[in-house]
């Protein structure tokens, strides 16, 4: 069961799960044995808005860090998400086709994107939960000021 760091900015509460690492873009990576599970942070899903469609690269795709891993269309934006790690996609979350709103409803659980094998995590490229919390807090505060 994941535990969370939490921050409130304006009327929004953002959670950061403490059992995984994050890219500065807001994707999380969780090691599960020799596999890596990837998904969107709570901040990224809230910032993106309600997800209408998620198109994830198919199983078997070999990804290098920085390659597009998925694209998401929400009520606010279209986003191309880049992979925070390298590896081969061995499983795509079927919910991305049937219920992409699970990204909004449960970003650290049911709303995961893919599972990678033979993954290579460049530790320097990822942030620990505390560092990501500080980064996203800065981004969120800046957005709140701009509104």
């Amino acid at each position, binding site marked *: 069961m994941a535990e969370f760091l939490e921050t409130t900015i304006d009327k929004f509460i953002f959670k950061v799960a403490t059992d995984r690492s994050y890219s500065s873009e807001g994707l999380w990576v969780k090691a599960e044995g020799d596999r890596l599970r990837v998904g969107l942070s709570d901040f990224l899903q809230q910032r993106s*808005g*309600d997800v*209408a*469609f998620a198109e994830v690269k198919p199983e078997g795709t070999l990804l290098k860090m920085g390659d597009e891993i998925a694209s998401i*269309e929400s*009520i606010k934006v279209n986003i191309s998400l880049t992979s925070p790690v390298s590896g081969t996609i061995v499983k795509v979350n079927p919910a991305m086709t049937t219920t992409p709103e699970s990204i*909004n409803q449960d970003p650290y659980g049911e709303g995961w994107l893919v599972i990678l094998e033979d993954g290579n995590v460049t530790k320097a490229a990822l942030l620990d939960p505390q560092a990501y919390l500080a980064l996203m807090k800065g981004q969120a505060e800046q957005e709140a000021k701009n509104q």
Partner: protein
Amino acid sequence: MSVQRKVVIVPCSGIGKTYGTVSREAAYEIVEDLRPKDAQLVALSMLVLGDESTRAAVAGNQAITIDGCKLACASKMVKENGGRVAQEIAVLDVYRRYKQFKPNGIAELNEGGLHLAHALAEEVAISIDNLRSKNKEGQNA
């Protein structure tokens, strides 16, 4: 004498939001073109302001709400004002069924948005027909 009450259509009031505009375009098409005799438009803003005749319309009739986002203001306000929501529709759910109609624009919708509004209006028109035939069955029973 038989009385058939109109179905109240309550769209999102989100100004400056594409999905709100889609909901309103659909609502206009329903009450002006598709089911003018069977449907009545209620402005959510009047409900929020507590307008008595609007509250009475909502309290006395079945309502179909069309929400532009997950805050679901239309559905919530109808319920808070004692209304009976026969069907809650979210524009996003409709868009998921019509991916080819990508809505854009606010004051004026793009072609995709207009097509989406039309598809939504047709779905609501069918819902209105179903509600009214159920009501007739109820009266005849």
